[in-house]
């Protein structure tokens, strides 16, 4: 059985259709990039897989759990234990420093543990920026905190929505290399949304979306 199974997902925002019956499967440990023009429903698809949004109809299975049938609190539980999100805007809490931002994710998962949070930041190469607040850090550093935060609860699924959208080429490369390292060493399943062809070259599989449905689905040949 595949790690992620989508069956005929439809998502409507009022009269507008964001997704028009998407079905697909993703294997455990795969790195999938979702591409497409803006408004093609790629972010919506990502959010539905991550349990951040619910489909209007259709079924979503992650690790055998039918997450579209979960109650709100169970869905929150699913998010904190199975997923890690990275967003385009880093969405760090402005009044918390780097370590505390990571600890916040731990807190909602179970309990805050400073030592572990420091470890997570070290993993993304930020051991020299522990006590800095987001406003004192560069965009690339902020995104790296986000990755540390997303990984600290040991998720099975890493979801990234345009993680490099606000970064220059150099930082983009740095983030992607970090992801690649984590992917090859720790075998996370990664789903990454991007419209940048450079970014889409990383990973193992590219989904092209257009107007709420999948146009093409092809493996990347290195």
């Amino acid at each position, binding site marked *: 059985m595949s790690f992620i199974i989508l069956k005929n997902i439809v998502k409507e925002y009022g009269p507008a259709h964001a997704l028009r019956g998407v079905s697909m499967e993703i294997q455990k440990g795969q790195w999938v990039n979702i591409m497409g023009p803006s408004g093609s429903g790629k972010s919506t698809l990502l959010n539905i897989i991550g349990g951040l949004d619910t489909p209007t109809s259709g079924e979503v299975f992650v690790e055998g759990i039918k997450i579209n049938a979960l109650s709100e609190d169970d869905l929150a*539980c*699913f998010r904190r*234990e199975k997923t890690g999100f990275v967003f385009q805007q880093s969405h760090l809490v402005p009044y918390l420093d780097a370590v505390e931002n990571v600890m916040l994710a731990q807190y909602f*998962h*179970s*309990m805050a*543990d400073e030592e572990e949070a420091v470890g997570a930041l070290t993993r993304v190469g930020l051991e020299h920026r522990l006590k800095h607040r987001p406003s004192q850090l560069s965009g690339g550093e902020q995104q790296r905190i986000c990755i540390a935060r997303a990984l600290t609860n*040991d998720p099975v699924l890493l979801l990234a929505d345009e993680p490099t959208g606000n970064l220059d080429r150099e930082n983009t490369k740095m983030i992607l290399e970090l992801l690649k390292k984590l992917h090859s060493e720790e075998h996370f399943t990664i789903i990454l949304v991007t419209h940048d062809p450079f970014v889409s070259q990383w990973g193992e599989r590219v989904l092209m979306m257009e107007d709420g449905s999948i146009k093409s689905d092809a493996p990347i040949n290195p």
Partner: protein
Amino acid sequence: MPPLIHEALLIGFKEAAKAGLVWLVFYSYLVVNDRKNFVKPFYMGLLVSFLIVFMSQFLPSDIVTKENAGNIISMSFALFLIMSGAALFHVSGTNMLSISASGYGSTLPEETQVPSLKPAAWGIIVLLFTVIFFAPDGMGSLLQLRELSYIKGRGSMSYISALIGVAVVAAVLFTVVGLYKPYKIGGFFDVPQLLLFLAMVKLFGSGAKEFAELSLLPSVQRGFMKFAHDFVHQVFLFLMVPDHPLLKATFWNFIGIFFGPDFASLVSLIILLLFPFMFLYHSLRETLPEPETRSVAEGRKIKAFILSGRRKRALPVACFIVLILIAWFSRSEETIMQMYLPKPIPVVADRGVVMIPVRDPTMNVMDGSLHKFSVSYEGRQYRLILIKKWDNTLAAALDACEMCPPEGYGLRDDHVVCIYCGTPIPVNTLGLPGGCNPIPLAFTIEGGFVKIEIHDIVKKWGFIKPLQGKESMH
């Protein structure tokens, strides 16, 4: 229909409330921890207790039986208190053995491990403790009921009243349980907390002596106070022997603080609170075990689970502490501070002998209360006290001791209390010389009179160091 007997109603209500509360907590505990196989031994224990209580109906009704019942109740309280401590000790030594943490929503392992005994053995233990818990209290209550029916002369009415009390509680309990199914409270308890809870129910719900004593608190308080006083007293006796004529009254005032009821009360309170505080310490401070898991996050999750469980189970303990403090201080206001101060009855020395009738129409010196007399001789006033000891012998002493200014003594519970320094002296130790004890007098009982030589009184009154303190005569 004859009127209900309120005391009996209260006794029935109290016993039923205790049983109901214990049932509710224990049953919830079993439900939450999936150990419902212990329900049967519990019920059997209740049945056995009931039989024992019924049998106690045939016990002789005298003071010794009552006294013994009170002692057994106190001992069973102590047993549960100490066991809860022991269980806590056991738990804190136990480590988590097999942890099979999995995804969300699944239950995580229990922190405690039941030692590997056969379920049958555990069943017998549950049965035994149920009996130990309920039988003494039930016996005590039944003895009280019997006494009530005797005193009030209304036969079975006291039993009927008690049954009505039971019925009221049962009705409330069934309604609450039926409507709300409050089994969640079981999550607040683990074995040590459960035992502590039982001890607390005993403490607040078991009267050892009279009807007025609804809870064990006064006896425990008395017991602890006596212990504290005796201990301190012995230490000072040891240090101060043979005598202490050179010590100033102010020094004895200072020492008096340690003898006094306030200090003894405080010490005993600390002793009683020791266990609950141990619990709190364990719950909140004890280091967490490091679980071995696939990932750090999972370990953190188990730790958080254990921690929140501990905090949850610390909650009832914290409540106990608050309850004990409130009860203790509100009690110590009303019962500990009240002192019986009889007025001295004037008597005369006839040919060198003071004669006091053992019994006359207005008084009986053997009634267990404190009796004070004053005698005037050669222009001076002397006071003496008579009191019956627990072994039914009489004690005669001056209304003064060697150390304090002769303000005299009052009676409080089982102690005579020095008015000046507040030292409580167990009645049974009267007749012994030294320390803050009233100076004993030699006496004889002849022809219905207590006879005391006036020269003995005058001579011993001279031992008092009366003149540096205020020599206030009553």
